[in-house]
């Protein structure tokens, strides 16, 4: 409930505020968003498994975001930024898929 509420609030703020994000953040923002999405889905899955812990959620949220950002930063410094970005996106995508399938199993019991 709180998560859905927070999402709605954030989207509404994002629609109405539309800030100018700094140039140095621009390559990392999509990665951050995907990582946070993964954390959110992981939390949803934990919620369905009745072992949701806000502490774990918060830590995993920030850990995901920071790790993804650092990875891309590292890739940029090594000259393989776009490849590493793709790698991070692929891994996060796989995780999102596995989380979603787990959630699906909880919802449909199959």
């Amino acid at each position, binding site marked *: 409930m709180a998560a859905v509420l*927070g999402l709605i609030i954030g989207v509404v*703020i994002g629609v109405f505020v539309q800030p100018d994000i700094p140039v140095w953040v621009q390559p990392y923002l999509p990665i951050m968003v995907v990582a946070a999405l993964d954390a959110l889905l992981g939390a949803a899955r934990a919620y369905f498994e009745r072992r949701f812990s806000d502490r774990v959620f*918060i830590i995993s949220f920030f850990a995901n975001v920071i790790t993804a950002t650092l990875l891309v930063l590292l890739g940029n410094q090594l000259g393989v930024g776009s490849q590493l970005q793709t790698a991070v996106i692929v891994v996060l995508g796989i995780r999102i898929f596995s989380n979603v399938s787990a959630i699906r199993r909880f919802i449909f019991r199959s």
Partner: protein
Amino acid sequence: MRMAGMRRDGRDGRRNGGETRDDTVTRMKAHVEAEERNDDLATGSFPQVGRAGNGKRSLAGSGLRAKLLSSTLVVLMCALLGFGYMTQINNTQSTYETLSEDELVRLINETSNQAQLLEQRKNELSSQLSSLKAAADQREQAEKIAKQNEETSGIISGRLPAQGEGVVITITRGTKQNIDAASLFTLIEELRNAGAEVISVGDVRVVTSTSITADADGNLICDGVTLDTPYMIRAIGNPADLQNAVNIAGGIGSRLKVMYGSRVTVTQSDDVTIDAVRDPATYKYAKAAQ
């Protein structure tokens, strides 16, 4: 993140104390399973490490405050996520990083085409603007000239009253004989030669078509108006020149005195006003040559 195979804590942990042994065995089995999965080398598998603690742990124990705090944090982070998402969406629309090379080339072509078109349009518009400006200048010039012309031609054609320094000439009736039209006309011609700009005889403005005739009784008629004696002739021009033109020895002034016995007075004045005007003539045949 937590992965599959971790369900042992949530539900099973609530069993009674009597089943602790079974619980322990189940837990050990699960642990072994997890270990085996960790050693799996298949693609897409991730190591899973069992948590050391007791499963559910909250930030600040339990209670309403803790729930409120955790809810707030979750709301905040989800808001952060939503905000980042929308920002990124807004941002993606304006960046070209995600576009492919073909799209970028097409975009550049389109943009340069548009720029060319706009440049062309700009040139057209600026040439139009300059021509309009020139036209406006010409028009202004023409208006200025027309105004000057109007004044000049108005004075020449007798449409406008005139004023300036000049002379007033009074000619009394001739004692020897009536003054004939030719003499009066000569006087007017003399005044013109002396540089008179505007002349009036009595109440008649003298223009190019002015004629002076005499009727059977010897009265002078100027443009259909019978002139009364003494004849008043006003002329605007250099007063000294005009006076000289009339009073010169052997001139028209002395001739009027000698031949007709009339008295001719020439008065110089700084302010001769000629109010007599003449309607502009409408020309039937003559047209201005372009």
